[in-house]
């Protein structure tokens, strides 16, 4: 699945990273607690979150997450968007709630990001 597919499935707006829409995503993680993201996420992931602060981008940066999708109609501030842009992370925003958003991606073949090591 590509970031562009995710945009379409979730009827999301692209806030930054139009040039990244062809990038492949292998796993997804739906999470509002950043330490859980740091504990479980695997490579080439998209992070779905309802949390809206710069630490979301920093956490994504630490984990090499390629795309952040804000759910529940949250729109991040400009400094959050530019932080993501600097780090080559695509940012999407959807009006969907967390559960249906994750469900749609799962149904379309995206795996959960949790590793069981």
């Amino acid at each position, binding site marked *: 699945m590509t970031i562009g597919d995710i945009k379409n499935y979730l009827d999301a707006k692209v806030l930054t990273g139009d040039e990244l829409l062809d990038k492949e995503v292998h796993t997804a993680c739906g999470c*509002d*607690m*950043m*330490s*859980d993201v*740091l*504990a479980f996420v695997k490579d080439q992931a998209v992070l779905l*979150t309802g*949390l809206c*602060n*710069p*630490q*979301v981008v*920093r*956490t994504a*940066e*630490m*984990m*090499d997450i390629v795309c952040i999708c804000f759910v529940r109609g949250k729109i991040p501030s400009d400094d959050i968007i530019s932080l993501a842009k600097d780090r080559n992370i695509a940012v999407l925003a959807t009006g969907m709630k967390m559960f249906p958003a994750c469900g749609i991606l799962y149904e379309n073949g995206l795996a959960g990001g949790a590793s069981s090591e």
Partner: protein
Amino acid sequence: MSDKLRFHYEVSGEDFTRAGEASSDLKAKLKLMGASPEVVRKVAICMYEGEINMVIHACGGVIDVTISPADILLELKDVGPGIPDIEKAMQEGYSTASENIRSLGFGAGMGLSNMKKYSDEMKIDTVLGVGTTVTMRINM
């Protein structure tokens, strides 16, 4: 000249929105130096969790990084309240974080166990009312 490279970071305890800047900087440097992706990720997670802890549980502090051919040493020193019970603090899910910190996305009680998991060696020195020093070693 030794074959060691050192970096020093001051972490402000005042500004939560800037927490993680030191980790971000070190991660970029390691990538440029050509460290393996696995090492870069391990260091990034350990340092970021530690840096966030300094900001939310203490009042900031200093981080010293020593890079040598064999390993990377992270030393995070704060003058915060100290940790009363290290064993308890190390447990997954144990957190004293306030509701306010939880609403910022932290306080799951996962940080110290993440640091333990991703480092090859970790040591916590803490004195109540004086401060905490967390030292982590990540092998190359």
